[in-house]
């Protein structure tokens, strides 16, 4: 029952080292994606695809997912699978609800962080000290945390003003900032509905208008993680524990210590994500996380265990999440977008020699495009499945380049390396 599982199906043949892709290429790809979205927007008339409101909603939805994903990144980079992110987030939402209604949003953030940290400590204790299977410990935390949160919520919120058995009293949101001049200027450009220009303006407009300070903190944490994990000796040692703990041990790294640090940080990030969720929706509710911890995990895998990638993954999930809240024609246009994306993927896979995968992607892409043209609307119940379908498709069709830390999920005990 090791977290590593069976290695069947995983291609183990050494892949030739490819030329390193320059950062500029990613910007070009992003611009290309926006151009395609803009094209779909013009074709379908679904202005909500790139409107400022959508971007704002997407950002709010993406931050908790990104924080959970960051939690997964820290832990898995040190070789500990953390499937308990969901439970840690639940504790974060309760902690935020408990502290924020009494002492304001920042106390809520702090309290959510502390509870997440404690859950992380529990996971570290189980997996590192006692050598319990990582996934089992995570499942146990996911069983424990919602029970604990609801237990505490019944105790502390039932008689609080405006609270109930399953929800906290209303909370005050963290302050929001808008960049003056730039925000209204972008608004006027967006309203012209020019192809690409207005879309970029809508995108940027969403990023500079009424942004929560918590969102900014989350963005700084993603950048900070890049720096700490990839630019400091601490980060190098931490990652070495996830790649080759025995080798790290032989070089004098205290693997237990680094794993503890990583898993505790992971819990703190997840708790913070939960706190953000509760504070930005101005209330703690039972079941508020709705699987976001799991989506965070998916976003991290989607992002190839890298901060930039997970931010992109979280953005994608936040975007589809936001689409659910916006008009139905935007949701319908998503089908066409998915179809085009799959066709692009088919071409890419064909060029790199994967004929079968290319064919499957092409068939699916045509299928989604046909679905778009044959129907007028997408049932709202199915939109919720979009992020998961996309993740499955990415894993199934484009996963060759994904590489997880080599010793991820394996149980390490000091002095037992062969």
């Amino acid at each position, binding site marked *: 029952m090791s977290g590593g599982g069976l290695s069947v*199906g995983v291609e183990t043949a050494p892949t030739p080292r490819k030329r390193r892709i320059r950062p500029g290429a990613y910007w070009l790809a992003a611009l290309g994606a926006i151009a395609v979205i803009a094209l779909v927007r013009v074709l379908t008339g679904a202005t909500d695809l790139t409107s400022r409101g959508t971007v704002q909603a997407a950002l709010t939805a993406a931050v908790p997912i990104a924080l959970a994903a960051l939690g997964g990144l820290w832990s898995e980079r040190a070789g500990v699978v953390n499937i308990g992110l969901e439970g840690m987030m639940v504790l974060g939402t309760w902690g935020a609800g408990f502290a924020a209604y009494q002492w304001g949003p920042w106390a809520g953030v702090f309290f959510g962080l502390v509870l997440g940290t404690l859950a992380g400590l529990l996971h570290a204790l189980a997996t590192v000290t006692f050598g319990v299977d990582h996934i089992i410990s995570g499942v*146990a935390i996911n069983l*424990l945390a919602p029970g604990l949160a609801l237990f505490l919520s019944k105790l502390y919120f039932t008689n609080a003003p405006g609270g109930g058995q399953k929800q906290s009293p209303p909370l005050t949101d963290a302050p929001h900032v808008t960049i003056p001049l730039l925000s209204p200027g972008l608004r006027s450009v967006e309203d012209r509905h020019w192809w690409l220009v207005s879309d970029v303006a809508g995108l940027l407009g969403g990023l500079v208008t009424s942004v929560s300070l918590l969102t900014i903190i989350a963005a700084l944490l993603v950048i900070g993680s890049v720096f700490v994990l990839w630019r400091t000796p601490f980060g190098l040692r931490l990652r070495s524990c996830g790649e080759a703990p025995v080798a790290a041990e032989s070089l004098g790294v205290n693997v237990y210590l680094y794993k503890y640090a990583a898993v505790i940080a992971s819990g703190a990030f997840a708790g913070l994500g939960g706190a953000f969720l509760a504070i930005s929706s101005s209330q703690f509710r039972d079941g508020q996380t709705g699987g976001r911890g799991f989506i965070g995990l998916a976003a991290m895998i989607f992002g190839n265990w890298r901060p930039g990638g997970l931010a992109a993954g979280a953005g994608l999930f936040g975007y589809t999440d936001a689409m659910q809240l916006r008009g139905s024609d935007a949701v319908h246009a998503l089908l066409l977008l998915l179809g085009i994306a799959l066709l692009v993927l088919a071409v890419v896979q064909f060029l790199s020699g994967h004929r079968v995968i290319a064919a499957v992607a092409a068939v699916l892409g045509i299928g989604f495009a046909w679905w778009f043209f044959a129907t007028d609307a997408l049932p709202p119940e199915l939109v919720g499945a979009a992020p998961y379908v996309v993740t499955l498709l990415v894993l199934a069709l484009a996963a060759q380049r994904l590489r997880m830390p080599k010793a991820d999920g394996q149980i390490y005990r000091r002095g037992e390396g062969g």
Partner: protein
Amino acid sequence: MRRLSLRAVLLGLAAPVGALVFAAAVCSVILVVTGHSPADVVDSMSASLDRPRTTVIAVNNATNYYLAAVAVAIGFRMNLFNIGVDGQYRLAAMLSAALAGASFMDGLPSVLRVALTMIAAVLVGAFWAGIAGFLKVTRGVSEVISTIMLNAIATALVAFLLNPNRLAVLEGNDIHTPTITSGGQVPGIPYSGSSTEVHGLILVAVAIGVLYWFVLARTRFGFDLKATGLSESAAVASGVSVKKMVLASMLLSGAVAGLVGMPELLGGAHSYSLNFPPGIGFIGIAVALLGRNHPIGMAFAALLWGYLDASSNGLDVAGIPKEIVAIMQGVIVLSVVVAYELVRRYRVRLEQREVGKALGTIKVPEVVGS
């Protein structure tokens, strides 16, 4: 030898019993800290045990949990983690309920109707798990991730299909699949003193348990399965096709998962609605862990879980949030795996000492580094 085997039994029991005691202690501390009396909880829960109805509900819960645990255990035995039992069970229950409630089924003989319903559930469960198995063998996608995704997709699909325009009917404020008429139901087993009956399909759960034991202990397939779980490379070396085994065990696991909803559907609710409890798949993981994937052990674990759930309902009346039971369950899972690990380490050390004694090479441990 006799003394030794007694010790083996004691060691085997030490982990689950120790974990239960530890969980009870943790919950007592939580109760005391939050201003409740642990004695009240014990009073309330043991008082509910005297009521026959609680026993029936506990047994019915245990039936569902046991099936889910077997589904999880099939994967566990070969190192596969089917987290998707939850989605497989809900999708299977929903679709088979729609089939069983369809009007054309009324003309068929009762046995055939029940059989068709269950076959449909098995096929749907196997199909949904099979997607994860297929992705695992063809693309190496971790079954943990794919089944989490499939759980969420199943939730959306069920919400989509459970709509009056599609497979459901609207009755008052309740949306559910068409009610299964009496010919398609499975009668319950009466229990004296209780108006609620024990689900008739508890027999299916027992049969699945026996089948699970038989296949694992007495067939070549079961041997291959266990061998793959213990060492993939050794299994490959002895000619086991791991890809086939992964696909087969995922399909079997999903098939059993499909049955999870059947006792409740055919014996209690008679239609699928959103009242079907989510999370049974995760309880199945806990029960399989507690029972160590053993057919009898899982039965005890399922009964314990079923009883804890059934007796928790009285707690809210006594002014104690019933979630204390959920906390206890979570602590049990975590402490039981820790306890198994500690016992295992202790056993290894004991064995080393025995071997050392037998060979006469045991030494006083040297002081290292001085």
